[in-house]
């Protein structure tokens, strides 16, 4: 669990994915291969704004979003 969350490898992968996206919808498509639902899109956009303020850049915020999405049950489990 802590390796998926905290390892350098996962952080790097999150940054690579994030470098290719500029919106929440693109992040969802790249990682989960679908569009976000409205219930997901709103908190995701809030998350991006908050983390952009904390981390100092939009790209860092998207990397953090990507790190989160790579740790979701939906990404990690085959349905």
């Amino acid at each position, binding site marked *: 669990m802590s390796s998926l*969350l905290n390892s350098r490898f996962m952080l790097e992968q999150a940054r690579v994915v994030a470098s290719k996206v500029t919106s929440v919808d693109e992040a969802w498509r790249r990682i989960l291969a679908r569009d976000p639902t409205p219930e997901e899109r709103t908190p995701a956009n809030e998350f991006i704004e908050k*983390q952009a303020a904390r981390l100092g850049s939009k790209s860092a915020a998207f990397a953090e979003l990507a790190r989160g999405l790579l740790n979701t049950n939906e990404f*990690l489990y085959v349905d």
Partner: protein
Amino acid sequence: MTRRETLLRAGRGFGAVALAGLLDAVESNPLAPKRPAVPAKAKSIIYLFMHGGVSHVDTFDPKPELTRHTGQPLSVELARTIKTSFIHDPTKAILRGSPWQFRPGGKCGTPVSDLFPNVRDRMDDIAVIRSCFGDVFDHAPAIYLRNSGSQFPGRPCLGSWVVYGLGSENQNLPAFVVMSDGSTKSGPPAYSAGFLPAVYQGTVFRGGDDPILYLRNPEGVSSETQRETLDFVGKLDQMHDAARPGDSTLEARIASYELAFRMQIAAPDAVDLSKESPATRKLYGLEAKLTADFGHKCLLARRLVERGVRFIQIYSGTNVGDDWDSAHTDLVGSHERMAGKTDRPIAGLLEDLKALGLLESTLVVWGGEFGRTPLSQGQNGRDHHPYGFAVWMAGGGVRGGQALGATDEFGVQAVDKRVDAHDINATLLRLVGLDQ
């Protein structure tokens, strides 16, 4: 308030805050401490599992008649009562006495062989049960049997039942920790929650200085961001989970992310042995190369018990490498080596727990999946032998200084006060306050 109480309460308080947001949707915290069903003698169990098969007649069950009959066969009737893995025909194999001397230990004088001289000094705290038996003679099924009561994987193991029944005193560390020397003969089903929710399964710690990898946030991620990201993932997982009711593995993953976050705060201190005194380090054998690894695990177990961790299981021996089971072809070499690795640390653990006043509330169990044949396998070996073997217990309400039950004069069959895996496990559960 003692330092320990402060840690415990502060820990639980913090955990409760973190859990509140996330576990609401899952249900109330499955690891919240619960009152024992019946009065408990022990709060924690440390189970030292010598996996691979330790020879009982060379450690805790002296058999002078076996020694006297070295080189002779068993009676056909007795030989026909056992099945073996590698000995082709037990009626044709020859008996072999122990190459090690037995000497009385402690004031009680319970005899123990020279393989465990340090444990021998602690016999006044130890109750040996010499009449254990099982009905499976291969490793993995026998390991499942000892842990879960069934030789087939899929039932909850002892540690899972204990944390299911009692919860944990520390929400910032896993309630049920497993440590091993590497790959085991049984694999993870030995510490699985079976049909119980997956949150009750054992959490594996590694050996060495880094028992839990990736305890720190990744570079550039603050604790606030980590918290917010986990909250966000938790929210997504809850939506995902809501569409898939009844899947406890998804819930367990949500809970394990929470635990991972809380462990990042509590675990670095728990696993940091550098503050232990040189005397303590020496007691566990950390200074000597042979004993350092198992000593490290035993000392870590004590630190976890101090912090309220409920069940710790330490496996000695691996599937590839240092192995009690090398006794098939090299009884002397394998047992000298494996006992050499574990004797000092185990004795140190007992002495240290006692000095700290923790032995009364901590049940220490030593055992494995079976013993080894009093019959010789080849020139210098012993085969698997579940028909009679020894397990011992110390602390946690167990009266030390006694040897209970007996095998026959050659150590073949348990004959007096026979106890199978279910009897032993029922005793362990009863001591921590769980009824059948």
